[in-house]
């Protein structure tokens, strides 16, 4: 099997991840931060060490500013719905996932307004200008993906943050960037960043985090934190304020091992590898008659993911043929409706191929060979 669906969820996971999750489930079932016995203290150690390794990955100093959430969608909802209030305005882009667009749409009913700006795939300055043109007096947030989940465009986060007026905060959706694009919250001027465990961080599904580098915001979920139990108000300090209920320790243990794995390889090295695989794949696809590609990776930075179509075939049909030949890709709209409108593919969708750190050029060669068979049919 060739697995080119890493933007949906990375596979395979490093051995250290599956081993540690299995071992943890066998050896410790305690609840972190609740009891005082040895397994509970050990579980709390796992949680803390994972906060620390996330900090290391993001150039942050305070592990308590890492808040665990079930996944990136929850993280984005916590941020968007927690920060924006009636009368506020937000700016986002046409590369965003529905996990950004739908919370904004929901908030429209509560008096929040937003504008969606066009990303120029090849001119980052123009993109920054488009964002700035839409900043208003009441703009509180700019919400931007770090890397498109369809075309792999790497967004100019540092340029965007440097250009924003004071008081406008930047939320970065790291779902496709975490563990793939070198990130430093302070250097890059990111106020809030969220990511899931199960994509570039190589961990299991079931957890993610928000990294907080600015003011706190209202929690969407409140409840048991173990701390201040007689106070019916939610604690107002991190991480307790935003982290109610039992954390999924086995998943977080796996996330820890996944992040250690990518830090050992080096995120710079992973980034280079994934850029080169995209270039290799797009060049190979461009050599096939009847194939449409949508980006030119020689003109801008596209990492990890790319997309194509075959003239006269639906993306679903192509993906099904590839699946029959043991190649895993994803077809359709990829929860990014505005990107497809931008590219004129709202009716056909696209076939997305997304690479992980284990993928190789020779796997792309096999994929191209199978695609050639499809084209001959």
């Amino acid at each position, binding site marked *: 099997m060739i697995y080119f669906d890493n933007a949906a969820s990375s596979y395979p996971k490093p051995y250290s991840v599956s081993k540690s999750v299995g071992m943890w489930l066998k050896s410790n079932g305690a609840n*972190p*931060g*609740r*009891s*005082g016995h040895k397994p509970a*203290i050990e579980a*709390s*150690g796992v*949680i*803390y*060490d994972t*906060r*620390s390794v996330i900090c290391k990955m993001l150039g942050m*100093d*305070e*592990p*308590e500013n890492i808040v665990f959430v079930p996944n990136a969608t929850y993280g984005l909802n916590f941020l968007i719905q927690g920060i924006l209030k009636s009368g506020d305005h937000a700016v986002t882009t046409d590369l965003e996932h529905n996990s950004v667009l739908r919370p904004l749409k929901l908030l429209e009913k509560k008096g929040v307004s937003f504008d969606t700006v066009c990303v120029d795939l090849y001119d980052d300055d123009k993109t920054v200008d488009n964002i700035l043109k839409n900043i208003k007096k009441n703009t509180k947030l700019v919400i931007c993906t770090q890397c498109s989940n369809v075309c792999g465009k790497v967004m100019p986060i540092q340029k965007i943050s440097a250009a924003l007026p004071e008081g406008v905060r930047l939320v970065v959706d790291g779902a496709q960037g975490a563990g793939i694009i070198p990130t430093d919250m302070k250097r890059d001027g990111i106020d809030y960043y969220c990511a899931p465990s199960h994509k570039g961080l190589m961990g299991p599904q079931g957890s993610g985090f928000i990294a907080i580098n600015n003011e706190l915001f209202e929690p969407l979920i409140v409840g048991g*934190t*173990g*701390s*201040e*139990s*007689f106070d019916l108000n939610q*604690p107002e*300090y*991190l*991480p*307790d304020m935003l982290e109610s209920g039992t954390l999924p320790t086995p998943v977080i243990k796996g996330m820890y091992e996944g992040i250690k794995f990518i830090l050992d390889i080096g995120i710079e090295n992973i980034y280079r590898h994934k850029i080169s695989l995209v270039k290799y794949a797009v060049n190979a696809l461009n050599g096939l008659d009847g194939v449409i590609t949508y980006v030119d990776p020689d003109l801008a930075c596209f990492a990890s993911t790319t997309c194509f179509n075959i003239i006269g075939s639906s993306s679903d049909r192509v993906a099904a043929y590839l699946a029959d030949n043991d190649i895993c890709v994803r077809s359709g709209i990829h929860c990014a409706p505005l990107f497809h409108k931008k590219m004129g593919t709202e009716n056909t969708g696209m076939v997305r191929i997304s690479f992980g750190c284990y993928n190789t050029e020779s796997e792309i060669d096999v994929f191209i060979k199978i695609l050639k068979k499809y084209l001959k049919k």
Partner: protein
Amino acid sequence: MKIKCKNMTHAMKANRILYDNGIHSKVEKINDDPDIHGCVYSIVFDDRHLNRALEIMCSGGVILHKKEKINYGDVCK
């Protein structure tokens, strides 16, 4: 020496940074203070390390439990 921390995260933080500085410690749940209810944790270490441990914890951003302000309020937040 037993010092109460703001929450489990800060107790763990104290434990890890003390370890990095060569001081052995452990995290314990408070179970001997009638005024404390819920899950409050302390960092426990040898008495002879008190001054150095406090300095390390405070410069490392460990926040102590509000009850400890009486004892160490001038040193730590």
